[in-house]
Each structure stands twice: as structure tokens, then as C-alpha cells.
């Protein structure tokens, strides 16, 4: 399990929690993009943004303008598909442990490091797209955090009562 600091543009292989495929047996790892991490009470928690190799019309419709598509050659590390699509407005906050994150996996967007941003026109274009995407991703994560903090981890939103 990585205990060191994560880096900007890092791709994490993790069991991104989603409930719309409960019929699928076993865990289904996703290649997610690192957003931010914190250490609290000697435990590290990481915020990731959803990544998938499948870009279908439903995903495009639901997350229009929120997707960063990166070809595998532009990612340093072993990626399974040809292209990974990261979805900015679909985020998760996870503890950094083996329940969620594959510690042996190591990959990073190959156009984020300062020395590689200007390698080719594609690097430059992707870096510009990443900067804009990163902002949207962080804004989305912040919105999500606000909602979770306001509602607490369990219970009704403050303005709604059951009885």
C-alpha cells in the first residue's frame, strides 16, 4: 500500500465503489485519477475520480463536458485498455488500504510532469485539457465534500424530516 505522498496526475487502480452493478460477481477494479489526499489520525485518505475504458452514449449524456480521455501511450504505467476516460463529477473518498487500492499498481499521466509537458503537440494539448479538467474535478470533489459534511455520515439532510 502506498504510504508516500501521491503525485499530481497519478492513476490509481482501485475498487471504485459503485452500486449499479451489484449483480456482477467479485470486485471490479477501475483506473482512477488522483484528486487529493489527507492524513488524519495517522491514516491516509485519498479522493479519486472515476475512470473507465468504456465510453458509451449513456456515460457521454450523463457527464457531457466532464470527461478527459487519455490514450494509454500517454500514461506511464501498464494500462489495460487503449483509452481511459476519467469522469470529473464522479468522485470517491477512500481509505488508503488494501480493501480499496492496489498498492502494486503504479501509473501516471505522462504529460503532467513539467519536463514532459512540451514533448509533443499532443502532450501540450493534453496538459492544457488536464489543467481545466483538474479544476472541474476539484470543484466537484469540493461540492461533494460540502454535502457529506452538511449531512454527516448517517442520517437525513438537515432540511428533511421523516416524521
Amino acid at each position: 500500500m502506498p504510504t508516500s505522498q501521491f503525485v499530481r496526475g497519478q492513476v490509481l487502480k482501485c475498487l471504485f465503489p459503485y452500486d449499479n452493478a451489484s449483480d456482477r460477481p467479485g470486485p471490479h477494479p477501475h483506473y482512477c485519477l488522483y484528486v487529493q489526499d489527507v492524513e488524519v489520525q495517522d491514516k491516509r485518505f485519498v479522493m479519486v475520480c472515476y475512470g473507465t475504458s468504456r465510453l458509451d452514449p449513456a456515460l457521454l449524456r450523463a457527464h457531457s463536458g466532464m470527461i478527459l480521455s487519455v490514450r494509454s501511450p500517454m500514461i506511464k504505467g501498464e494500462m489495460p485498455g487503449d483509452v481511459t476516460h476519467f469522469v470529473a463529477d464522479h468522485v470517491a473518498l477512500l481509505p488508503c488500504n488494501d480493501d480499496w487500492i492496489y498498492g502494486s499498481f503504479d501509473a501516471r499521466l505522462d504529460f503532467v510532469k513539467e519536463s514532459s509537458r512540451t514533448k509533443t503537440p499532443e502532450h501540450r494539448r493534453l496538459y492544457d485539457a488536464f489543467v481545466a479538467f483538474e479544476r472541474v474535478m476539484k470543484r466537484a470533489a469540493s461540492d461533494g465534500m460540502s454535502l457529506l459534511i452538511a449531512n454527516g455520515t448517517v442520517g437525513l439532510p438537515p432540511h428533511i424530516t421523516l416524521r
Partner: protein
Amino acid sequence: MQQLLCFAAGLNQLAKRVYDWVMKKFIATNGREVLKAVTPSGVTVSMDTSVPLEALEAMQKKLQADLSVDEHAATGHRRPVKKPHQK
């Protein structure tokens, strides 16, 4: 009275549906309990329910700081520096 009770039950059901829509708990494939919520702007956020509130607050603080730095970089405005005598 009967009508009032029916109305209250209806409201109760509606509130429950809104709650289920906004906040949803489920067990992920790895057996961990997860809380999922959708913000009014359409952001889907999930978290392991073992994540403490302190971590949420620390994360929010960091994200806000990142966004603020980005904004200052984009607009070219320098962040106002607080002088030592200012409260």
C-alpha cells in the same frame, strides 16, 4: 382525521424517497459499507463509511485551498497578504 393521516404518510414516503435519492448506503463488492450522495449540481460522491468527519473536513480545506490558488493564478491577482497588526 383519516385524510390527515394519509397525507402525513404520503409526506413521509416522499421524504424517504428524497432521502434515498440524495443519500444512499450500500455494501460494495469488497464488503465495505459505502455512502453515496448526489449533489444538486449532479456530482456523485461516494465514501467508505469508516472515513472520519475530520478527514472530510481536512479534505475540503485542501480542495478549497487548491481552488483558491488556481483562481489567483488564473486571474493574476495576488492573494491579499495579512499584515501582522491586522486581525
